[in-house]
């Protein structure tokens, strides 16, 4: 273990961020890692717990956190990388964008600030890339089995790498023009610059993973063809169907799904052509409906585009404000007020806000009408009752409305129709513990199977599904 009394001697030092004034001028990554010595010292805060809750309950991909904390503290960066690589195919992604339930699960956070697990992870993998330790690991033997993976997001990439390394021929189909799925076009550069993904794709390519981009299965290729050509089809298409809002005025211009907005922005940041109507926040009053991470990404993007004013509304009550460094709900994810870097950049946030309608002129949205709601006491087994406070009905002048209220499930598209996979009650692709869908030889993993969730969870499911698929093929 790092240092027996490290947690008592060293204070937590997290990564820094570029100054707001500076970062608003560009889309470059905003976090700044401390010096390597500081990061190593932070590893010394790890207590090497008898039960590492960070690893066992916190981290969805079960990173071997105490092991690499110790190695980093002892300056064994390459071995740390090796241990990190054992569980996580995309640590450079999770090290940047994961909400880090490991840290809220960290045993130190019972009564102190947690170990800076996420930044240590990032430091390990970035250092590994820098040192040239991240090398392709192509299989030594080919099995001759062919696998089609549909969707190149985190689940697809993780599964592709794992399956390829086991010697299978893997083809990843992506409907967009570039690889990465939500990582590529869903997450703004200021949180995840795209070279990070490209760098990893390089490795996958060197290992022999084949990518087919711009292929819309169902339209460009038939499901039948897929099933005929490949031994297994693995669906990792994410949960792309956004939740809509059904209020009067929804069809006015200027009201968009957050993902449409973010994809456009990401494409233009990447210097790529953008289809259809340009959605820009420049000089506008922007309302983001939905208080989650996607909403937060919209806020940051809008501010960078030069929005006049940015609002973010959430229908649920404002979470508890929590000024302490420890986790009040340890080891679980605490429901507390979180302020993201995007929020810090300028945003008016409110909670208990129910959108009632949009009004506008000439088909363009001009006002958003809303009221505050009250939430009843929680009743076991039922969603809490909500009531509108009629005295609070207000209108706000808006030019752009971004709907970031989450996702329903996988997009029910033609491919799934043709494959005839069954869905669960929530509209996700129904799978069993072994990631098998109702159709033999067809597997599903990631958000497509469980609904929208964390990138890190998608990686885990991608890996696990790969194991299942390989076992199936080995029989």
């Amino acid at each position, binding site marked *: 273990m790092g240092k027996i009394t490290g*947690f008592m001697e060293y204070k937590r030092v997290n990564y820094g961020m570029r100054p707001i004034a500076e970062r608003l001028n560009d889309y470059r990554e905003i976090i700044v890692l401390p010096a390597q010595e500081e990061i190593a010292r932070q590893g010394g805060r790890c207590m090497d717990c008898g*039960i590492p809750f960070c690893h066992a309950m916190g981290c969805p991909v079960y990173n071997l956190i105490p092991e690499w904390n110790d190695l980093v503290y002892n300056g064994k960066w390459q071995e740390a990388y090796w241990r990190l690589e*054992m569980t996580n195919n995309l640590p450079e992604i999770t090290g940047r964008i994961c909400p880090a339930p490991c840290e809220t699960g960290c*045993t130190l956070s019972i009564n102190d600030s947690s170990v800076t697990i996420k930044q240590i992870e990032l430091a390990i993998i970035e250092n590994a890339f820098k040192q040239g330790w991240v090398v392709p*690991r192509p299989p*030594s033997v080919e099995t001759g089995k062919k696998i089609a993976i549909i969707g190149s997001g985190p689940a697809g990439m993780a599964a592709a790498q794992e399956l390829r390394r086991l010697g299978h021929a893997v083809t990843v189909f992506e409907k967009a023009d570039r690889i990465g799925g939500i990582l590529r076009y869903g997450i703004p550069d200021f949180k995840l610059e795209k070279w990070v993904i490209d760098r990893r794709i390089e490795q996958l390519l060197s290992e022999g993973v084949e990518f087919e981009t711009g292929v819309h299965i169902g339209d460009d290729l038939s499901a039948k063809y897929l099933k005929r050509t490949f031994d297994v089809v693995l669906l990792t298409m994410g949960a792309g169907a956004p939740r809509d809002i059904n209020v009067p005025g929804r069809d006015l211009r200027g009201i968009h799904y957050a993902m449409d907005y973010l994809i456009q922005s990401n494409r233009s940041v990447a210097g790529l052509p953008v289809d259809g109507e340009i959605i820009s926040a420049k000089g506008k009053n922007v309302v983001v409906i939905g208080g989650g991470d996607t909403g937060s990404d919209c806020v940051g993007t809008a501010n960078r585009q030069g929005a006049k004013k940015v609002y973010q509304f959430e229908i649920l009550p404002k979470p508890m404000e929590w000024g302490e460094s420890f986790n009040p709900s340890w080891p679980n994810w605490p429901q507390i007020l979180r302020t993201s870097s995007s929020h810090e950049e300028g945003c008016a946030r409110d909670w208990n806000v129910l959108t009632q309608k949009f009004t506008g002129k000439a088909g363009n949205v001009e006002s958003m009408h809303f009221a505050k709601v009250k939430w009843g006491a929680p009743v076991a087994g039922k969603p809490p009752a909500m009531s509108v406070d009629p005295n609070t009905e207000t209108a706000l002048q808006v030019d752009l409305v971004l709907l970031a209220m989450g996702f329903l499930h996988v997009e029910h598209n033609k491919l799934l129709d043709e494959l005839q996979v069954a869905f669960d009650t929530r509209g996700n692709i129904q799978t069993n513990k072994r990631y098998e869908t109702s159709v033999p030889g067809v597997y599903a993993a990631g958000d497509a199977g469980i609904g929208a969730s964390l990138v890190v969870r998608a990686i885990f499911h991608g890996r696990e599904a790969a194991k299942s698929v390989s076992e199936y093929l080995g029989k």
Partner: protein
Amino acid sequence: MKEHGLYDPIFEHDSCGVGFVATINGQASHEIVDDGMTILKNLEHRGAIGGDLKTGDGAGMLTQIPHLFFNKACKKLGFALPAFGAYGVGMVFLPIEEASRKTAKKLIESVAVSKGCTVLGWRETPVHPDCLGELARDCMPSINQVFLTSSAGLIADALERKLYIVRKCIERLAAAEAFSLEDLYCASFSSRTIVYKGMFVAPQFAAFYPDLADDDFQSALALVHQRYSTNTMPSWYLAQPFRCMAHNGEINTLRGNINKMHARESTLSSELFGDEIKDLFPIILQGGSDSAMFDNVFELLELGGRALEHSMMMMIPEAFGPKYHISEDKRSFYEYHAAVLEPWDGPAAIAFTNGSKVGAALDRNGLRPARYVITKSGKIVLASEIGVLDIPAGDVVEKGRLAPGKMLLVDMQQGRVLSDNEIKATISRHKPYRRWLEKNKIELKGLFGLPGPVKVDAESLAIDQKIFGYTLEDVDMIITEMAENSQEPVGSMGNDAALAVLSEKPQMLYNYFKQMFAQVTNPPIDPYRENLVMSLMSFVGREGNLLDETPQHCLQLKLSHPVLSNDDMDKLRAINTRGFRACVVSLLFDPTKGPQGLVAAIDSVRAEAESKVDAGCSLIILSDRGVDRENAAVPALLAVSAVHHHLVRKGKRQLTGLVIETGEAREVMHFATLMGFGASAVNPYLAFEILARLKETGRLSSMLTLETAIENYITAVKKGLLKVMSKMGISTIRSYKGAQVFEAVGLNEDFIHEYFAGTPSRIGGIGIEEIARETLMRHCGAFKLSTAEPANLDSGGSYNYRKFSENHLFSPEAITLLQKAVRENDASVYKSYAGLVNDIGENLCTLRGLFKFKQAAPVSIDEVEPVGSIVKRFVTSAMSFGSIGKETHETLAIAMNRLGAASNSGEGGEDEARYIPLPNGDSLKSAVKQVASARFGVNSNYLVNSRELQIKIAQGAKPGEGGQLPGPKVDDTIAKVRFATPGVMLISPPPHHDIYSIEDLAQLIFDLKNANTDARISVKLVAEAGVGTVAAGVVKGKADMVLISGHDGGTGASPLSSIKYAGIPWEIGLAEAQQVLVMNSLRDKVRLQADGQMKTGRDVVVAALLGAEEYGFGTASVVTLGCIMMRKCHLNTCPVGVATQDPRLRKKFPGKPEHVVNFMKFIAQDVREIMAGLGFRTIDEMVGRVDMLDVKDAIDHWKAKGLDFSKILAAPIMPKGGSLRCTSKQTHDFSKSIDPMLIEKSKKTLEEKTPVTISVAVRNCNRTIGAMLSAEVSKKYGSKGLPADSIKIKCTGVAGQSFGAFLAPGITLELEGDANDYVGKGLSGGRIVIYPAKEATFRAHTNIITGNVNLFGATGGEIYIHGMAGERFAVRNSGALAVVEGVGDHGCEYMTGGRVVVLGRTGINFAAGMSGGIAYVLDENQLFDTRCNLEMVDLEPVIDEDDKKFLLGVIEKHVAYTGSEYAKQLLKDWMEMYPRFVKVMPIDYKQALERIKKEESREAEVLTMTEEVFK
């Protein structure tokens, strides 16, 4: 008694009182026989009686053939006897039933005739069975004497040998004709001696055998024995003495000794026996006790031509390590014989005789008392106690005790008493052993030299590690730690990981074995403080004929320890000198052949080994070097044991040494098992390669060279081996080798029988097929196609939790749910928690997980006993203040007191302030107070303030071991309650120094019962094979409650290998205890408690059905208070403030009493619900209803499906009037206690403090004088007691054991006469004065006046002894002042406080482990430093004025109190004498004192300064 359920008679233990009386000049008389009787009667309290409260465990007497008497008796029967020495008498136990008795007699006669003897006649020994207990009478044999002569007219030794042959033939034929030992047994068969024995307590003995009352029954010696056995089912033949000895103690290495003796038979030859030697086989008669088997070998050696004392020196050699100042010839004698015979190791006081010589010997540890007196009238008495025979003080020439390893012999032909020195000098010089050794023993040059470079190939290392199943934990936590710190890593909390047989992961074969350990019936040895008695030296090679002595016998390779470096292996391979050569047998096999391949490989390894032996190879190296894709390795342990047993069976084992060269061995347990199953040495080449790799990659600290790392690692293994051996009470590797002191858990009978014969394995399990599968899983896994970084090892997860690794009972989810449940008092969350813990589908960890409850007619839950009454049966397991913080300790106490349940103080004492209730009615007082080996904080007041006193014999996480609290953890508060000095390390010794055997435990129970008559006394045991018989012994020792702890219990700090590998699950131990107690009619007198990872109501119900009435929660209860299983208790860094003394961290303690209260209530409710389903209304109804338990039928686990729980679930044999639970109470016999009288006479003093003086005559049966009286003082006046000398008691005579135990302030006990063991045990402030009778003429200061282990655990008070004390004087003294005129070995051991002044000689190892207090020793010949253990102390001259003043003062007091002439003389020459004193000063203690002084002076300075300011 036959095997049943988990009961197996092989686990029976016995112990006892032993002694002899003899006339030195050999003059036979009836008086000696009478004296023998008297001794027996006075040793009665050292024996025990059975469940019927009448049947004794056995007593007996060995005398010379009473020729006069037999002449008379035989004449009456119509046949004449020849002269004394020309005939033999067989004392034979035959069937009562006439027909079979006739057959038996015929058998004896025909054998006698066929072997050339003439039967002169039979005599039915007259007996009076009326006096016997019912149990004894029911199985009483017919006791007969057969008189016979040699037809060839042989006399003397030749006749004796003939009789020996005849007897062995009778025994063999009897066994062949299906006579059991109960039906045909020769108690003695000799022309020299005869044994009268049976199932009695002493007083019944004389009445039973009227022969002994006849005046013509004369003998010059009477050797007697009073037995205390763990069983109660009478077995007449197991009573002692045996044919030539009586034994107080236990042979721990028995299994190995038997195997080796068996193998040796093939090479035995002797001119004395000629062809008839074959008639002697088997030398060791099966079915006997350890003592009986010892007797078998002892008589062979003696009749084989060696002198009686020579034979004894071979079997029980004294320690001859470098620390002992002994003659070179004697050292050579022992070393030579180390190559001939392994020691029969274990605590032993043995009295032995061949009719003309009688003697006694003590083993090297000297853990049994043996006191002797030689009289002017030419008599010698030796016994476990002094005072067994009344001898006028004026008649005494010498009073002494046998020191460790020493012998005493009376040669009645010479008419002399021979001292140890004389005996051994003669024997060790009667052959030129030293020259023989010099010429013949092989000591390889450079062997054990500094290890050279180790070559590593990173790639193959990576593969080899996987083949041999290494995990990151093995490398990081075990190997690295051993190399860095030269010792095994320490961990904390218990082992809650799945049992090997329940694990999904492939397990190493070692993981299926559990170390056995000594508890109660024999003590563990202290491998740290008393390691000078231990030895890792051994000889390997070809043994010679045991009955011969030649120079070639020691033509063997001497290994100073058993861990061989790679260089050593090269040397061994190359060895070829004087016919000594080594051969390698490869352990590789073809992995593609599957399990059958392994079976075939073992067969061929065995055959190859045998043929190499036949070809003259003296050393076989089993090697798994060369594993690769095509070559898998036979598991090393399997290979070693298979070859060992094969060679034993073929009678060839003694012809070769076995060395194992393996990549498997990495941790101490691996080495221990390899040695324990037959290897002489181990080369862990892969561990060395790993160290080399760690060095290369910079993972070892830069200060450490690879050579040092390897040396450190080897040192760690050596220390670990000593520890494992010591746990079982074994001192030398020579006898540990092959002793098989392990129990298997999860291996099936066929497998054990074939490869590990003789190892207990009681629940079946996997066999060779699954072992092969596990081996191949590892092997193939290493070559599985993978692109992952090859250097990556699996995390492990058997110590620290890892997802997808070993299951642990406490998963992170379970902890989270449990804490939520108790904090929010939410029963539904508790349910989810319990569901998770009980779910074996996901988390199969324990045997009980596989049990299910049978269907029964349910009752309404309203009819079931309420929660409030069930919780009263719950306790929190012992956790000391010190291991856990103050807040945790007190919160547990408050919670359990609120429930009317009990918390347990643990062994760290308790602050007296906690005895006063809080204003809100809460109490911080622990209801259960523990009395553990260090006796921290144990004084009269502590004992009085408790409902239960618990003697901790063993702890689940580290049975057989002590512990230590490092100096920095000993803060002011802890030091205060433990009566220690802040900042000074505190050590708990492995053994209780007042419990070396079962009768000692009975004595401690008696002491505690005296110290608090209202408290119940409990004894904490840890489950292992045989714990049931131990429990039976404990109940016979009058314990009110027995706690059976599982192997998995928690700990504040313990070596990882002990946490993992010692002890077994409580399910087995509890079931065994229940079965044995029920069948022995003892269950009704005692309550049973169980603990060990109990977590849910289901666990409680399983425990109840298996027989427990009470249930303990350790880990779970601290988890409710916030523990999150950091497993860092030993580092003082518990981040939640539960198990730390760091004030910064203690502030973080989140626990509340309500949390524990809620938990206990949830459990109780859970229990109620299950009970309702099972139709039980009360717990009492449920206890012991094992018939309600069943095994889950659908076990499809590939390993667990082989388990067989029939022995656990067997219903005990229910005797008439038996009970499944406690229905009555122990009866305590205080009839010989004088304290009630003392209390009566002190009534006024106790009430009004008016001083009183009392006089009383005492004898050795009056035990524990003063403790009960002290309790009265403490109850009334607390620990302060009464003013000095308020109660003065003058005793005259010989005081029994524990004189002045826990004596409270204000009481003075004066003794004119002698005292036995444990004087001043736990002395709590009173004063003891002991001096010889006024009329004595011997020189008091050179004679022993008190026994062993005086002042053990004393916390205050004074003692003045005019005379010498025995071994371990003032051990663990933490506050008393003592003046004594000489002490035995190990004086002031583990002392932490107080002052000891020794005015004369000390034995060896003085001040071992002494961390506090000061001793002053008169060092007249300037050799004291050679006898002092200087590890922790410095010796200083007495120059300081304070010291001089102190010394002078106490010696003056000593003179005043005892009238010591010797001390008077010292005072007279004071200016001459005081410079000869040395001051023994513990180093840490000195520093601590200086620190305290400095702080005081600093405070003083601060004070003056402030005052100045204020002026």
